[in-house]
């Protein structure tokens, strides 16, 4: 199965992220799905967004299992708080997560305050995408042509 986001969709998501960074004073944030794919990110250049998504999706899925074991429907957010850096992961939909990274103890409150609003905005974007057909521009971009894929990855020795 394949799904895709158009340039416009991604820009709408990025706009939510930029606003969240501005309001919460967080350092960086990203949106990923339950499989660990990166859907959009802002200011995550110093770290690897793929790795953060993979680990964030894994952590959140494990937390969901813990909630289930405890008889709770869901823990909607996960906060890991460190001395210098912290990370908050929030569910936007069943399959989409919002990951926010920030510094300083004093920002915890701001991040906790503004992340649910951002998560709701992300959720709204996906709901609006749900029933929309592809535009002409998007259809034109959907021409996937494989190059010769005989040897995709080669080792440097051996």
């Amino acid at each position: 199965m394949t799904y895709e986001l158009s340039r416009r969709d991604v820009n709408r998501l990025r706009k939510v992220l930029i606003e969240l960074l501005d309001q919460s004073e967080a350092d960086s944030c990203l949106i990923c799905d339950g499989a660990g794919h990166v859907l959009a990110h802002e200011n995550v250049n110093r770290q690897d967004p793929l790795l953060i998504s993979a680990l964030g999706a894994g952590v959140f899925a494990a937390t969901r299992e813990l909630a289930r074991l405890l008889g709770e429907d869901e823990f909607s957010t996960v906060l890991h708080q460190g001395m210098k850096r912290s990370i908050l992961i929030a569910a936007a939909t069943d399959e989409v997560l919002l990951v926010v990274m920030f510094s300083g103890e004093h920002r915890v409150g701001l991040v906790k305050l503004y992340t649910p609003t951002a998560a709701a905005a992300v959720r709204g974007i996906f709901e609006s995408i749900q029933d929309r057909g592809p535009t002409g521009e998007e259809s034109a971009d959907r021409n996937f042509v494989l190059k010769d894929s005989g040897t995709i990855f080669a080792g440097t020795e051996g």
Partner: protein
Amino acid sequence: MAFVNQDTREIQLKIVYYGPARCGKTTNLEVVHRLIRPDHKGDLTSLDTVKDRTLFFDFMPLVADVVQGFTTRFQMYTVPGQVMYNTTRAIVLRGVDGVVFVADSQWSEMAANVESFRNLQQNLALQNKQLDDIPYVLQYNKRDLPAIAPVHYMEFLLNNRGKRRPSFTSVATTGEGVFETLNMVARLVLHRFVKDASAGPGRARELTLA
């Protein structure tokens, strides 16, 4: 579930190495990480225990230039093989696009191979997926050890479904068979991606509310 980002012109695909405990899943990724061209790989991250047993998963991104106009990113994962970590295996399998089933060729591990293969099908069923609908390859590892089953026996045991899948013998510790396996599963996943994508846009329906 493959993901296309039209803004960054990226395709993201997820491949999972599955198999019983100590069959060589992590070794496969370690060898790829060691030998592959630096511009094709990211860091290999292992979430393991003090005894080097995989606790959650190993993760390594690979990048390839195989679809015209797009950067293709393969997200490579392993699962923990130990029976007690089944919840973790089910989590790692979420949204999988392709599977490498690594089997241990030693006679003593045949029951574990069969159990793990069955477990793979069960965990896919939790996502409403069937193994037959997913690109996968089999790798018969540890062919350098003395007490191993012949390949035709392992084929009979694990590759006996309606449609036979590509299978490879390997000695992952030396790199033998590792890249052959990787290239085949990557190729199968890419062909499936192009086929699915040309059938019509999946859009983002799967990411909205259940």
